[in-house]
């Protein structure tokens, strides 16, 4: 671990982390631009970097992207990222009440505390969990991925049917290419370009960036200008006593929700907010500009990143779209996240962990010092940003393989994404279905190969049974779902 910090503290890596975090904060603060989009667009730039530097940049963007959203959530009631939706509940009323500075101060502080607490779990659990996960075979991976798919489709969106529909559609697009279990081509229609299937990045950039650009180009320009924070951001020593317990609880909730694959930072924030409200002595004050509301949401959404990094580095299973891209970044550098990453590339495994902590600290410094300027950047008319972003999308997709086919794929998925959103079919499960179904398929078929086609061998695999049970439970727990649905009004526009 110490070595990882030494490795991280070269000026290049720190500079990359700094650049990544500040880019992330700015993009996170601009409503409509998300961390996933930023990471997908910068990935082609990392092809020829050192692996540690590449990962450092992307982790910085991830942390910054989730954190920056609180600024616009508080000042404009427009969450910069879906993860900050909950922050609008109490943050915006506080700002209306001339307590914007206080809301920002608490939000930033809570983000950092959430990040650091989940880092403790990340650093403490990952190596042991990786050793444990080494015994996982195809059955366990298959059921784990299945659980992730079901959870994402069922929990994260307003309609379970539409979530599942989106996931199945995503799976369908993952089918063409070389069948990993027989080595023969499948659904390629004799087109050589389809032999490697649809590339992850063109699909992601298309579904997230292009569809967003097309949608924004048609949207009216918002005239609303935020009241910029005027004074210093106030924090008091007494905050530790007033908010300490809430911070700890919300961070732990955030970490554990993040740990479950497929559930994003937004759900983590919502869970922590609901819990804080339930245990509060003054639940009626939530939603009216009550400080613990801001604290709970911002602790949990940042903590969920640390939690989500755990299955990523120990098992190689992406919990969200952002992580799917991070895995893509590692595989480009011939590194495979999974139980052996700690053995084979400890500098990367520990480098991710170290970078996550340092990114949180950089985020604190940047946000504390520059919140006023970031708020101003967030006011740049988006029309001016769409053009350059579109150029980045095209160049980035082309750069992956030096092939224009990827650009067409990107544009096609941009239009598909636009259509899906218009039909209110969520994009998160669509993309996760696309990313996870090849893993699920490969692992299921590997399991059946191992057992000579006998599906009941799963009965001898206790962990696989456990994951399967959790997946089934998620599907058929209407009481639980009903409670989640109550909150869905606010989550309409979210994605993984």
């Amino acid at each position, binding site marked *: 671990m110490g070595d990882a910090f030494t490795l991280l503290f070269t000026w290049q890596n720190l500079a990359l982390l700094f650049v990544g975090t500040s880019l992330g904060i700015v993009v996170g603060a601009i409503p409509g631009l998300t961390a996933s989009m930023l990471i997908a667009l910068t990935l*082609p*730039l990392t*092809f*020829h970097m050192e692996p540690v530097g590449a990962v450092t940049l992307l982790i910085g963007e991830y942390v910054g992207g989730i954190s920056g959203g609180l600024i616009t959530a508080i000042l404009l009631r427009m969450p910069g990222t879906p993860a900050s939706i909950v922050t609008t509940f109490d943050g915006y009323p506080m700002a209306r009440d001339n307590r914007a500075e206080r809301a920002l101060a608490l939000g930033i502080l809570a983000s950092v505390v959430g990040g650091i607490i989940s880092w403790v779990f990340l650093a403490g659990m990952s190596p042991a969990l990786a050793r444990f996960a*080494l*015994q*996982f*075979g*195809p059955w366990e991976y298959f059921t784990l991925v299945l659980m992730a798919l079901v959870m994402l489709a069922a929990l994260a969106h307003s309609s379970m049917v539409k979530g599942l529909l989106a996931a199945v559609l995503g799976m369908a697009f993952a089918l063409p290419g*070389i069948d*990993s*279990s*027989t*080595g*023969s*081509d499948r659904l390629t229609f*004799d087109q*050589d*370009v*389809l*032999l*490697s299937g649809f*590339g992850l990045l063109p699909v992601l950039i298309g579904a997230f960036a292009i569809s967003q650009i097309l949608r924004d180009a048609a949207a009216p320009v918002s005239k609303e200008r935020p009241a910029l924070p005027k004074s210093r951001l106030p924090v008091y020593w007494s905050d530790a006593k007033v908010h300490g317990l809430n911070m700890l609880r919300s961070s732990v909730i955030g970490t554990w929700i993040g740990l479950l694959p497929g559930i994003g930072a937004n759900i983590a924030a919502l869970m922590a907010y609901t819990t804080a409200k339930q245990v509060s002595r003054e639940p009626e004050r939530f939603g009216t500009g009550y400080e613990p509301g801001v604290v709970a949401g911002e602790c949990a959404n940042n903590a969920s990143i640390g939690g989500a990094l755990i299955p990523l580095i120990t098992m190689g299973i992406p919990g969200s779209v952002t992580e799917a891209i991070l895995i893509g970044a590692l595989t*480009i*550098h*011939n590194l*495979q996240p*999974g*139980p*052996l990453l700690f053995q*084979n590339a400890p500098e990367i495994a520990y480098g991710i962990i170290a970078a996550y902590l340092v990114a949180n600290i950089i985020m604190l410094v940047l946000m504390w010092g520059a919140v006023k300027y970031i708020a101003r950047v967030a006011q740049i008319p988006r029309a001016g940003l769409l053009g350059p972003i579109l150029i980045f999308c095209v*160049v980035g997709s*082309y*750069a992956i*393989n*030096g*092939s224009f086919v990827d650009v067409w794929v990107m544009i096609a998925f941009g239009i598909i994404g636009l259509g899906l959103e218009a039909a209110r079919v969520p994009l998160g499960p669509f993309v996760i279905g696309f990313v996870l179904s090849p893993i699920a398929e*490969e*692992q299921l*078929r*590997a399991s059946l*190969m*191992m057992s*000579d086609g006998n599906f009941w061998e799963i009965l001898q695999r206790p962990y696989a049974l456990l994951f399967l049970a959790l997946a089934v439970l998620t599907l058929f727990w209407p009481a639980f779902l009903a409670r989640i649905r109550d909150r869905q009004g606010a989550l309409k526009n979210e994605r993984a």
Partner: protein
Amino acid sequence: MLIRYCFCGFWRAARASALIAMAVGAFGLVGPISLSAVSAQEFPSKPIKVIVPFKPGGRTDVVARLISEKIQEKGWLDEAMAVVNVDGGAGANAVNQMQRDAADGHTIIHWHHQLLIAAAMDLGNFGLDDFKSIGYTGGGSPVWAVREDAPFDTLEELIAHLKEEPRSLVEAVGIGTIPHFVGAMLANEAGFETRYVTANSGADRLRLLLGGNADIALFAASEFLAQGQELKALVYFGRERLPDLPDVPTATELGYDVTWANPNWWLAPAGTPDAAVDALSSALDKAIADPEIVEYFRNNTLEPYWMDGEAAMEDARKTLDQLEDVAATIQ
């Protein structure tokens, strides 16, 4: 062509265009003096594009870059060699890219026997007839390994166990990839049968083997050596024992006629003039004998040797026959 280089990745683009700029500059300097000697047929007349059908960083890519740099450094060809990575589609993308350029030797591919597997499995619209073989610059062979605590110390014990209880052991392979074909060649030869579990990368095979979810897996000798103590190698598929693994017998020694020496194979499009192929092969022949290259090969469990184009093609056709037998069993 310049444009195609430029978009292959920002840094690669910078590097490639710098190379071209240097090459063009050098030509400009030398040009006027040697103009009388340069006829229209002279090869090479522009930088040579070396297509690698994989992402940057793998063995095939590194060897292509080392050899290209060496040839350039020593001036064995008059022009620069620029490596371009075109991965995906089981190599079909790379072949398409090659066929888009003229068959004049200025666009070549550096590949290995995955080409034969793609041909045997009928992936992509290409076969051996689409290529003219320039030659092999050495190659490497894999080992078959089991966990260190496995009850077998020799291949004989393992095979005896499998003959007693057929299909009782699980082999981690990617169906239709090199580990699958090599294992199946041995199984056909020795007459045993294993069960398979899909594992499409060396890291996956290692994970399944160490986690107890597979019993046997194939590793490149360098992968095996890097892993160290937790594995036990039972057989090496090279023609002779590997100096780094003096105690691991070859399959041939044990009486099984199975070798898998995966070469660094240089290929030009069919129809490339012989003069260009000869110029390339003479440069490659010199490069593989260079002490620095030899040292890199030895340090990375590769064998440095030169096999000329025709001999290489003959070797490849023989291997393809064997692979087609295996492919017939899975399709």
